[in-house]
């Protein structure tokens, strides 16, 4: 069976979710691998959400928000901009390839770009292969 990456996407309500919506209404073809979760702002994305997604079997996590300077709440996306590199280092400590988590800025008018971002992310995760997180945790329960 070919590996189909499962990617969880956290999209901000004001730019990226609208951008994804535009990709749909514009009939843009892109990989169907991202499961989108809408959040009001990327600042709402607690690193716990990303870790939880990986624990529950996601092969990748895609975070999309308004371009810097364009946040609906002025500065929300900067909060994520600061959390993102620290979160990546946390995941590296866990031995998880940090490319499994990606941050991209996508505006409400960038439907085409959203499709490209998803295609690229899916391709990248396909190359990395399935995440071994769930399997590792299952092994621990079975074998000391």
């Amino acid at each position, binding site marked *: 069976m070919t590996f189909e990456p499962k990617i969880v996407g956290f999209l901000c309500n004001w730019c990226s979710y609208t951008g994804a919506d535009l990709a749909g209404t514009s009939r843009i073809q892109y990989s169907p691998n991202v499961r989108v979760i809408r959040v009001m702002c990327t600042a709402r994305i607690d690193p716990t959400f990303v870790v939880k997604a*990986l624990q529950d079997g996601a092969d990748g996590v895609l975070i999309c928000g308004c371009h*810097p300077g364009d946040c609906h709440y002025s500065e929300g996306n900067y909060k994520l901009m600061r959390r993102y590199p620290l979160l990546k*280092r946390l995941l590296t400590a866990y031995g998880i390839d940090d490319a499994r988590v990606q941050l991209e800025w996508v505006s409400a008018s960038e439907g085409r770009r959203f499709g490209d971002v998803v295609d690229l992310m899916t391709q990248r995760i396909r190359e990395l292969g399935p995440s071994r997180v769930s399997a590792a945790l299952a092994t621990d329960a079975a074998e000391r």
Partner: protein
Amino acid sequence: MSEKLQIAKYWGAGCGGCDVSLLDTNEFILDIAAAADIRLWPIAVDGKYSDLEAMEDGELDVSLYNGAVRNSENEHIAKLLRQKSKIMVAYGSCAHLGGIPGLANFATRDEIMDRAYLHNPSLQSGSKVVPQPITEVDAGELTIPSFYRRVYKLDDVVDVDYYLPGCPPAPAQVKAVVLTLVAALTAGAEAPQKGAVVGASDVAVCEDCPRTRDEKRISKFYRPWQIIQDFDRCLLEQGIPCAGVATRSGCGVRCPNTGMPCRGCYGPLPNVVDQGAKFVSALASIIDSKDPEEIDRIIADIPDVGGLAYRFGLPASLLERRVER
């Protein structure tokens, strides 16, 4: 049986600091000895595993288990104590969350064995002696406990009634918890709800911290020895990563009061599932920059993000251990 309470205290993978913390209750330990028979406490009193095995189920009133579960002996005794005890208490950070020994979950068993027994500057070069669970000798077979692939917290292997956090638990809290349990067992007082974290509060360390807090905006992280700190001001505001924001209070703010940042030993706040992720989130949010490259430079001053975030709770985190590579 006698009227006295029957208690046991055991150490799994721990340092012995928890055992000392019980003694740190000073003369109160005499009250414990007067009110209770200490049936097993390897570090302090006599009492053999065989005595434990000979007990009736439920014969012990309280078992205080400190230390994490690193090997088969730790798990075996945890299960025996659970079987023989009415109340099982995870005592201290290691039993509660995995503790310092839990940091070993960032490495594999093979890496640990290699580092400890094969490639270590303090070893005689060429040493190839690695402990084996079973060794054949002329007289027969010798066994030692088997070293697990990873570290577990106590409730990964047995049912736990109460969690008493801290590395080690603060003596005043130990005393209060012991008195609560004695009152529940002997005088019919209401016991804490099963599964409760006892001997701690439900707010963050910051709530009890006497340092003054203002706006948190930092442009550099420092390790405690890299900066002459202002003892009256929040450590985070001075760029010293302090886990107080993401840690349950009840310790008496021991570390910040002595000039050291909180390391998070009392564990996550109620309803927080992953203490390290919360701590990292808080640390990132105080960085005063909107430039990705500058942000990268600022966080580069934190040498070990994983170890900092999960100093006492890696086995209790969502991912529990290093999972790949």
